[in-house]
């Protein structure tokens, strides 16, 4: 290092940055390429959702909760519903629990594939990114066939689910499992055996197991550091008690733990494979029965109005533990208060540790490595310029096209 090596200067990564999918600011004190200190400043996208919920009844809040995140939307509503059901002492039928687990696992697959693609894009591996997006389309189609929507499924309700698993949808899920067993290995090989990908991720953003415990890392971030934590294992909810999930940690596969970005990548990609097995068990073992505790909404609302108390719902989202706490008061229609703690809250705390002594080139990758919640997804229409057709697609036409495709996928 040169004589002037003690002079540092500050570089902002974000709030808006090509490598980030969500606004968050990280101020990096750098010495050349080396990061000396990192300060994370979140808060650019606060929407006051919890406050908005206080003017809505629990059924209305479901649709609000679904819009907390564009990726793990179902995770949020299941956590919220479990909190409400806990407060109102509502029993959920077994079949509904299985369908919830099914959608949760489908969501995990699409979230992890999306994340893996974006991580590759962050270090300039565009081909893997495109391959990931291509593979992800399949699970999106299955979600659409199952629920009618690609992102916000609108499938959960207090005391159960709103859509049954039809034989047709079950067949689509089975086909998808086969498809991924066949195609996903290519993606795994491409990324885990590529020398540059390995050079970019190995020993980058290391979070030791002790630090992961001390800073409350959750989900794949903690499992990437070798901790056997998984709520589906330690405190099973919905159908997971029947499925026998074990936490997936890198030492079981590679023999050792580095706690780096590569391990977090590996955990997520292998969890896709794990989710495929779980999906198979769910589709095979789903029992017959009702899908809701009470199909008539006025009755549900009356029961919720009569309920009094605080309910908790904690589930394992694609990013880690998602905690919802709800207070219902007797005689009040609206939610008294509602607290959401998304896993990114906990995981973001360990960012400064991961940044220590890394390089600027690693910064966006490290930020992405905990998979911070990404806000929304959009549909894209490809227009065909070669046959000289040019038309402006209005919002109404776009919606009609979406519905058309949904009808096609669902076979209605």
């Amino acid at each position, binding site marked *: 290092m040169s004589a002037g090596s003690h002079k540092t200067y500050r570089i902002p990564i974000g709030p808006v940055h090509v490598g980030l999918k969500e606004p968050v600011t990280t101020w990096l004190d750098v010495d050349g*390429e080396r990061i000396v200190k990192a300060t994370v400043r979140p808060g650019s996208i606060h929407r006051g959702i919890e406050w908005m919920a206080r003017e809505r009844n629990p059924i209305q809040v479901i649709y609000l909760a679904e819009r907390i995140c564009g990726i793990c939307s179902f995770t949020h509503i299941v956590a919220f519903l479990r909190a409400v059901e806990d407060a109102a002492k509502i029993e959920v039928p077994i079949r509904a629990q299985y369908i919830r687990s099914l959608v949760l696992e489908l969501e995990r697959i699409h979230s992890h594939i999306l994340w893996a693609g974006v991580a590759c894009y962050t270090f300039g*591996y565009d*081909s893997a990114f495109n391959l990931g997006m291509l593979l992800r389309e399949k699970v999106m189609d299955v979600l659409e066939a199952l629920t009618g929507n690609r992102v916000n499924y609108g499938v959960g309700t207090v005391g159960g689910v709103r859509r049954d698993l039809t034989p047709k949808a079950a067949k689509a899920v089975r086909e998808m499992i086969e498809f991924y067993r066949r195609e996903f290995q290519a993606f795994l090989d491409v990324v885990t055996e590529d020398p540059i990908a390995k050079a970019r991720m190995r020993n980058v953003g290391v979070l030791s197991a002790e630090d992961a415990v001390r800073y409350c890392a959750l989900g794949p971030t903690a499992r990437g550091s070798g901790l056997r934590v998984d709520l589906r294992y330690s405190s099973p909810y919905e159908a997971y008690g029947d499925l026998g999930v074990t936490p997936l940690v890198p030492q079981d596969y590679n023999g050792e733990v580095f706690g780096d970005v590569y391990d977090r990548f590996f955990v997520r990609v292998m969890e896709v494979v794990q989710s495929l097995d779980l999906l198979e068990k769910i589709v095979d073992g789903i029992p017959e029965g009702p899908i809701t505790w009470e199909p008539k909404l006025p009755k549900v609302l009356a029961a919720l109005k009569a309920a009094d108390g605080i309910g908790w719902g904690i589930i394992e989202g694609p990013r880690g533990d998602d905690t919802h706490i709800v207070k219902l008061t007797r005689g009040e229609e609206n939610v008294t208060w509602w607290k959401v703690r998304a896993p990114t809250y906990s995981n973001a705390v360990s960012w400064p540790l991961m940044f220590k002594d890394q*390089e*600027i*080139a690693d910064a966006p990758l490290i930020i992405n490595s905990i998979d911070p919640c990404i806000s929304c997804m959009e549909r894209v229409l490809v227009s065909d310029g070669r046959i000289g057709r040019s038309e402006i697609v209005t919002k109404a036409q776009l919606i009609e096209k979406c519905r058309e495709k949904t009808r096609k996928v669902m076979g209605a």
Partner: protein
Amino acid sequence: MTDFLTKLMSGTALLFLVLLLAVLYDGLDRVVHARMQRRLGPPVLQPLYDLMKLFVKENIVPRRAVAWVFNGAPLIAVTAVLMVFLYVPMGSLPAILSTGGDVILIVYLFALSAVAMVAGGFASGSPYANIGAQREMVLMMSYEVPLAIVVTTLAYFAYRSGIPGEPFSLATFVAMPVWGMAGWMGMLGLGALFVSLMAVVPAEVGKVPMDIAEAKTEILEGLICEYSGRNLAMFKLTFALRHSAMCAVVVSLFFPWNIGGFIGLSGAWLLVVDFLFFWIKVLFLQVFGVTVIRTAFGRFKIWQASQFYWVQVGGLALAGMILLSLDVLA
């Protein structure tokens, strides 16, 4: 005087043609890249549309930039790399300034355009551009090593094996392909030199895995972060031209064969056919040397790239040098 005028006229015409070809090849690069990723890709002429748009856009100079360096850098960068084409023989068409310069000059012209970009980056007054400029400098220092080894070894080989002409002149290599002069050891050495030279190309043209100075997901296009309008258009041209120029030099050094004489053409047709054949070879090198590589890999970090050029590529070039020297001396 008439000689000067002919050169001026033909040079201008040639450079216009080269500009168009380089932009077209940039578009082809993007289409091939997209197809390999199972995407549709942009129209082939998309880079041309981009340039036309950029040239009429507002040219913003940041308040903290050093205006004259900031505006001058793109001009120098694009001019320097355009000049390269005046020293490269294209098919049977001799280089327009063939007597005025050789491979060393070409290497310097490449370096000049890179240095101009670095200066522009430093003058931008943006931390991202600053980091990009630093990275570009480090990268230059890294790839110059194998590049220098390749060029000097080839010249030494040409000199010792008795290829007629100036050992450093491109015309010498074009007149007599080096492969014909080497024994089996020399062939191996030439292969090693060719591979190490091709390894330098992605860094020269700033493409993945060596787009470290422009890494958009890390430092937001780094070097050219603050550029817009006309200046950005000139930088885009510089990248496209460097791509073609670098491949043209490799073609001249290693694949100088022509097709026109072989099928018995003469006169103007010979020039046209050989010129086209030359550019087809350039396209092949661009596709296989850069597009395929940038599709197949991710981006290096700067120290990894440095290490790659000093150790792996440098070692390969040295091995090539030793093999070729042994071949000549034996």
